[in-house]
Structure formats: C-alpha cells, structure tokens
C-alpha cells in the first residue's frame, strides 16, 4: 500500500501514525490540564463525600494562605537570582573554554559535570557540604576564624543556600548552548576585528553578544521554566523549611497534594503554575520568536 492514493487515504495514514502519540498526550497532558481547572472549582472528596462545586473557594483559601504567598515570594527571589546569575556564569564559562585556554578539556568537564548528575544525589553532597560543624563550608569559614553558621537551618540563609545549588547545577548546562553558538560564529569576524584593532571587550559587546542573542533568548526561556520546575533539591536540603523559609511553588503544591491530600486546593495551585508556564511559552512564541529567525 503506497501513499500515492487520494488525499483522503493519505489523511487516514497520517492520523493512524499520529494516533498513539496523540492519544497518550490527550490522556496525560490535555485531559489532566482540563481536569485540574475543573477540580479547582470543587471541594476535595473525602471518604464517601463526593466533590461538590464550591466556585472560587479554593482560590479564596489560596489568597488567605500565608505559605502560598511565601512560596510565591521565594519563587520570585529564586528566579531572579538563578536566571541572571546562571546565564552570566554560563556565558563567561563558554567564552573561556571557547578560547585556547590552558586545560580546556578539564575546565569544560568541571563546568558541565553537575548537569549530568541527578539533582537528588548532588543535593545530598551539598547537604554534607553545608552541614554545621563537619561540613566543608564550616571547615573553611572556621579556618578563617568566622563564627559557625547553620546555613540551611537559618531562615535568613536557607533560600540563598538552595539557590546556590540550583545555579551550580544549571550554569554548565547553559554554557553548552553558548559554546555551540560561539563555535558557529564565522572566524573571519574575529580576524577582521583584530585587524581593525578592536579590543576584546569591544569585540564582545559589538559582535559576539548581538550574534548570541537567539541563544540568550533560548537559554532565558529554559532558565525561566526551570525556576518554577526545579524543586528536587528541597526534598533533601530543607524540605521547604525552616518555617517555609525556602519553600517554592511546586514544593508547596506537593505538600498540599500529597502530604495534606487536599487535592482540590492542590489543583488550584497547579492552575497557577500552568498559567505561569503557559505565559512564558506564549511570551516566547509571540514576542521572542518574531525577533529571532523563525522557520
């Protein structure tokens, strides 16, 4: 059977090939998204009591939930630190290992290694790193004569400590994309700039940085999404504490949904997350992709 048949036969073939993927997407992406919205307007079913329509009640609970607002605030802080810092570090790393720097292979490996390791595993390592008294950090600060500090146990430093881990994990990942872009730049640009007597800083500002724009936007979107998706390390490092000082939205969602089993309220929080992520995606689609080459 060839597909030279009429358009209708071809359509049948096409839909048959799409069917398995679309069916699974419908079952595990489209339907749950809709169901989340529906459930967020219902109560949590308890025992024999079925869910009933409660209108905006779950959202009212959300507005009055101090932990939710704490998570929002933390997540914004987490995003506003991880996004620029990890991107800036990634760019600097890529510029370094793009040059013929001594020990380039080692440097590239050192920067990229955190990316391939499971977050849950590296969080264990960082937990040890941060541990009061024994941890390496304590040993270093102790040697410098600084007072002992419980980085993860103190509400004022817990969020910073988990943010640092996220930056450490992500920078090497983003470096790869910058490195790829830098290597695809035309080498004659560099020669021309050198012949013209441009400084390296000028060359970066006026040639490399503008040409890296599509990469920066791509990395930016990824960093944004990750800022709302990356919570694995909280399970090991702080469990959102102390006193919710380091909780993030997805972690709060997990606690509400699977520790307190308040699935209706969890659905409302999920709606917030979906709106945030969809907003980022639409922003990318309608604002950024217009400016960057799009096929």
């Amino acid at each position, binding site marked *: 059977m*060839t*597909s030279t048949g009429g*358009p209708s036969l*071809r*359509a049948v*073939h*096409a*839909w048959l*090939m*799409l069917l*398995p993927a*679309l069916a*699974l*997407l419908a079952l*595990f992406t*489209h339907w749950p998204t809709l*169901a989340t919205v529906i459930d967020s307007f219902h109560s949590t079913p308890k025992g024999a009591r079925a869910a009933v329509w409660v209108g905006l009640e779950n959202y009212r609970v959300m507005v009055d939930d101090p932990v939710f607002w704490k998570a929002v605030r933390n997540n914004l802080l987490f995003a506003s630190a991880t996004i620029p810092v990890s991107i800036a*570090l990634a760019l600097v*790393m890529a510029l*370094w*290992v793009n*040059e013929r*720097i001594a*020990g380039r292979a080692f*440097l590239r490996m050192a*920067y*990229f*290694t*955190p990316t*391939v*390791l*499971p977050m*849950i*595993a590296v969080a*264990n*390592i960082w937990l*040890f790193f941060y541990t009061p008294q024994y941890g*390496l950090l304590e040993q270093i600060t102790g040697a410098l004569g600084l007072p002992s500090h419980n980085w993860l146990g103190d509400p004022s430093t817990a969020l910073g400590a988990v943010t640092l881990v996220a930056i450490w994990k992500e920078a090497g990942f983003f470096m*790869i994309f910058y*490195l*790829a872009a830098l290597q695809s730049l035309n*080498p004659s640009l*560099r020669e021309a700039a*050198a012949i013209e007597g441009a400084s390296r800083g000028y060359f970066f500002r006026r040639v490399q940085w503008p040409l890296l724009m599509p990469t920066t936007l*791509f990395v930016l979107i*990824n960093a944004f999404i990750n800022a709302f*998706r990356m*919570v*694995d390390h909280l*399970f*090991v490092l702080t469990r959102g504490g102390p006193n919710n000082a380091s909780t993030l939205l*997805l972690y709060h969602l997990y606690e509400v949904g699977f520790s307190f089993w308040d*699935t209706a309220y*969890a*659905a409302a929080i*999920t709606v917030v*997350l*979906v709106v945030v*992520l*969809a907003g980022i995606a639409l922003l990318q689609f309608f604002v950024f992709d217009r400016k960057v080459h799009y096929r």
Partner: protein
Amino acid sequence: MSAVAQQTPRLVWNEPSWLDTLAAWLLALLWILPLAYAVWTAFHPAAYSTKFHLFAPLTLENFARAWEAAPFARYFLNTTLLVIMILAVQLVLATLAAYAFARWRFRGRDVAFALVLVQLMVMPDILLVENYKTMARLGLVDTLLAIGLPYFASAFAIFLLRQTFMGIPKELDEAARMEGAGPLQTLWRVYVPLAKPVYTAFALVSVSFHWNNFLWPLIVTNSQNARPLTVGLQVFSSVDQGVDWSVITAATLMTSAPLLVAFLLFQRQFVQSFMRAGIK
C-alpha cells in the same frame, strides 16, 4: 578553526590572559569541590570523612555497607528498565508522528501539531495531582509503567524529529516510492538512518532526564518494587541512616556513577547531543 589559526598571525586578544586562565581555573575548582569532597568521604573510613590527611587509608567499605543497607540492586534494575522502556516507546511514537507531520498535508494537521506543542509548556512534571488520580483509576500506582506513561508521548522528540525529517530531500522519498516502498518502509529505510545523530542526541537527553527524574516517581511509587534509584536514594538517606556521611556519600556516588562514567567516556557525544537537542 586550527587551520585558520595557523594562517593568521597571533592576535593579542585571541589568547586568554593569565588572569582569565586563573579565574577559569578557580571557578572550575570551585565547581568540582563538592564532588571532590564527596569522593574523598566515600573512599575513606568514617574517621577521615571530614579530616584531610594525605595518607588516609582508602576503603570500599562504605560502598559495601550502603549496598547492603538498602535494595540498591533492585533500584538499579528499576531505573534501567524504566529508562529503556521510556526511550523505546518515545522513539517509536515520535518517529511515526514526526513523519506524518513532516511529509504529509492533511486536514487538521496544524491543529494536531499545536496540540502536541501544548506539552512543551504544560509538562507532566506539573500535572502531578491529576496524573496520580489517573494512575489510581487505572490501578497502576507503584508500577514502572505508571512512572513512564506520562512521558511516552514526547512533544520534544516529535518536534526535534519533525525538523530533521523536513530537512531531508523529498527526492529520496520519491525514489523510495518508485521502487515500491510503502510509507513505513520509506520511513524505516530512508528517514530513520539519515536522522541517526538526532536519535542519539535525543536518547542521551532522555536517558539522563529519566535517570535523574525524582518528583513524579516519588509520588507514584510506594515500595521498592517500582522505586527508581533517585527515590531509593532519598528514602535511604533520609530515613535509614542517621548521619553516617561516609555511607550516604558512597550511596550517592553509586547512584550517579553510571551516568558520570558514561559522561566521562563519551564527553564529546554528550555535549554535542545536548547542543543538538537544544538548538532548534
């Protein structure tokens, strides 16, 4: 690159300054410090876990104790089966869908493609509550299948392969058809071989993602029957052990080892795959 470098005179700013080199090395050392610390602790007796001594005795004792303290063999098996299952299904489903999107015009194609792209913004990682309910309804809670199901249809793979297939000359398609090959044969004999690098790229990204995935497996499993390594490690280090850091770091390195070794052996492929998968 090197050919160009030979022809052109050495440009002063073409070479990184010693300050750059120093800073790059400092950052690199800082970057592997936590890992190096973990390696030190795991390979030395507990007495030396936080004391640095050049001639501290090396030991594998910590690994042996970790291996015995929790069913890590089972966790390894679960994770291995899981990543193979997910990857195999993803590749088959995405190949079929990508081919239909890339080569055929049919009614509803653009709508279908938009429906696929929805998954790029609303990932399964977010839809925990509803997907858990679905798994409970299907009676699949605490199975490997439940961990994999939400990821089987990968919008990312479909998107990536569609782009690749679109870049393959149509003439090859027609030539295959002239020889009497059907759509599936054409796909298998022309498209799949030509897209090999993309398959490798996606495979590496998918395997490392699912080897490392934690939250969904944590939620949908509740026994060692289905628990993957990440969840097993978390249960082990938070419940079973007090603060025996030597054993915990040994377990941590053990669970990361396969990926780490694979990465060190195939560094170039890893880096290129991540680049290829990221740049559309």
